[in-house]
């Protein structure tokens, strides 16, 4: 192998970095496009839970928008709700025949959930924590690469939402790392927030 001088090494290094970043920037839109997830095995569980919990989350943002928050916050609630609905659509595309249909589940919140900003935020954080916990698990263990990538992106979004809601509640930015949750753990909590319409609870 030919020897190179320190100057040549640095120049080549800079060229490599510039080339990599440039290629990354120019390929930006292509790189951002998500390969189609093909869920395998337990992947369906992560996605199905996500679809139902995102439905509850979207309902929370809808209700929160009519609570006594500032106009700025309410605007962001509306944006977040739109993002949640887009996420549900993406998850359903990935689920195919297993997709959650509109009307399969209704969100049911405690009567006093939106009585105050504090109670509303507590519920919102609870839902986002469920999502973050399950997505954290899914991003680590989903069998299909594209599904893992989708779950990772959903995780990134919901982790930001969780941090924002915590901030609205007066918490400091970093208040502990979220922990991964199994579907068994997270499902117990989610079950208190959703019902199957047209069926009496047994």
């Amino acid at each position, binding site marked *: 192998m030919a020897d190179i001088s320190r100057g040549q090494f640095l120049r080549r290094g800079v060229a490599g970095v510039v080339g990599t970043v440039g290629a990354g920037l120019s390929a930006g839109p292509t790189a951002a496009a998500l390969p189609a997830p093909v869920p395998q*095995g*337990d992947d*369906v*569980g992560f996605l*199905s*839970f996500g679809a*139902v*919990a995102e439905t509850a989350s979207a309902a929370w943002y809808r209700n929160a928008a009519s609570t006594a928050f500032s106009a700025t916050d309410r605007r962001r609630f509306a944006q977040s709700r739109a993002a949640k609905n887009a996420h549900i659509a993406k998850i359903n595309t990935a689920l195919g025949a*297993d997709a959650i*249909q509109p*009307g*399969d*589940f209704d969100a049911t919140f405690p009567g006093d959930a939106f009585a105050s900003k504090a109670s509303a935020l507590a519920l919102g954080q609870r839902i986002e924590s469920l999502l973050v916990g399950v997505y954290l698990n899914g991003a680590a263990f989903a069998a299909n690469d594209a599904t893992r990538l989708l779950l990772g992106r959903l995780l990134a979004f919901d982790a930001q939402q969780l941090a924002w809601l915590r901030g609205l509640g007066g918490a400091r930015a970093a208040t502990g790392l979220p922990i991964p949750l199994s*579907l*068994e753990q997270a*499902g*117990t909590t*989610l*079950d208190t927030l*959703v*019902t*199957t319409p*047209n*069926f*009496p609870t*047994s």
Partner: protein
Amino acid sequence: MPSRPLTRSRRVRVALLVVAAAALAAPAGAQAVTVYGAASLTAAFSQIDRSPTYNFAGSNQLQLQIERGAPADLFASASPAEPAALFREGRCTRPVTFATNILVMVTPSNNPGGLRSVYGLRAGGRRLAVGTAGVPIGGYTRRLLRRMQLTSILDRNTVSLEPNVNSIIAKVGLGSADAGFSYYTDYLAAKSRLRVFRLPTWAQPPVRYQMCVVKRPGAHTAAANAFMRKVLAPNGRRVLKRFGFGLTPRG
């Protein structure tokens, strides 16, 4: 009292009255309807109307029989897939949703497998009664297990595949299986012999019952429509509710 002789017009009126009375008194007798229904509808349908000739079985089996020309007039399925297929093939009218249900896990009342929840089946070694993949209860069960990340329980336990929900209930009720997956309504119908375990709401597949009037030469279409109206009428809905079914909003 001497009887008055009937005039011609009176005779005509009497004859018309007799014909009208006969038509009102025995519309069902004139057109005996044959209803092919999902096994899970056995008790409720028989209560709504005793007069039809019933054939209760797995919805997929009934669909196949109708496709082969069986003399069904009305088809009531435990899932939308079967009537939708018949509708696409032009063999029945547009299906109507009339009831809903949910899935539960049942064990014999003495719970010999010592199960505390569905998650206990992950340990394996139990006898499970599960619907075959083609029958609605089997499809719903597999969908629920996929959502709960529990499909492995079908490998870890000894599974007997059943053709319909009645045979799942029979097997569990007799103690030939440690657990099984059925509809909530089937548990209610045999609850003295069973113990029920609720399955998570968030993982429930949407169980929707649909019915349609079968199109075939010689079908008793009017009688089938009359039966359908009976099921959708307030009394039919009350019976379905009493047997534990969920109801869709009246359309």
